[in-house]
């Protein structure tokens, strides 16, 4: 049992649960993006904890953290691009009013 690893992974699990709740329950696009950000932050905590307490000699784990950070940046850029487009055409970023996007 590695207490630091258990603490870090538990924090990651709690952040994942909170982010999942937020992404599913919010009606505003910007708030949904916030939920996804929390889920990705949980992934970051887990990767760094695995690197530190199990494989500190493996730099590929740190590289993977940079990739997840890139995913966060991409998600923000695309999300806000869609938000601006919707706000300009519909005057709102409420996803309850975006049923036409449903496949």
């Amino acid at each position: 049992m590695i207490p630091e690893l258990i603490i870090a992974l538990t924090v990651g699990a709690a952040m994942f649960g909170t982010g999942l709740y937020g992404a599913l329950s919010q009606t505003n696009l910007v708030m949904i993006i916030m939920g996804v950000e929390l889920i990705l932050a949980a992934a970051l905590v887990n990767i760094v904890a695995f690197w530190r307490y199990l494989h500190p000699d493996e730099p590929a784990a740190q590289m993977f953290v940079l990739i997840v950070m890139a995913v966060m940046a991409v998600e923000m850029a695309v999300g806000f691009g869609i938000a601006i487009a919707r706000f300009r055409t519909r005057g709102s970023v409420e996803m309850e009013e975006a049923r036409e996007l449903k496949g």
Partner: protein
Amino acid sequence: MTGSFAQVFFLAFFGAAAVWFGVVVFRTHSMVRSAIALLFSQTAVGVMFLLMQAEFLGVLQIMMMATEMSVMAIFMVMFMMDPGGLGAMEMTHQKRLSLWAGGLGLVGALAVILLSDWGPAALAIPAAAEQTAELGRELLGRSMFIFQSAGLTILTAMVAATMVAIAPEKERKS
């Protein structure tokens, strides 16, 4: 035990802070407060990285998230009908389903954490400078293709987001 009591204590403290501010994001009616709570949550995650001796990633996380959340707060104020939350608008749906999904995700992850055998802890860790040098060698060596792909993906996303966001020409002229 791989570290000192202080290290375990502060890891738990900043972990609790990260989770608490994450919960505050969805509890407050004020969108600006939500963005600031997310900023605090991500900063606490950055401090956890520093406590886990990932200095470069910790500083990167704090710097990147400070910028990202500031931009998010500006977007919040621009797009929200009630950014200050004074009207106490209801902005949630399918709450019960979301609570169940979040709760099940948490319980499932906790079960995996507590029931797994994680093996022995690694005691020796490279110094901060050596870690950064190794990461640089990794990025410009074995993982160069992945790193370049990530950069190209960000560039493509930026161009695509800008294209989606700018108004069509006929709309701008009218």
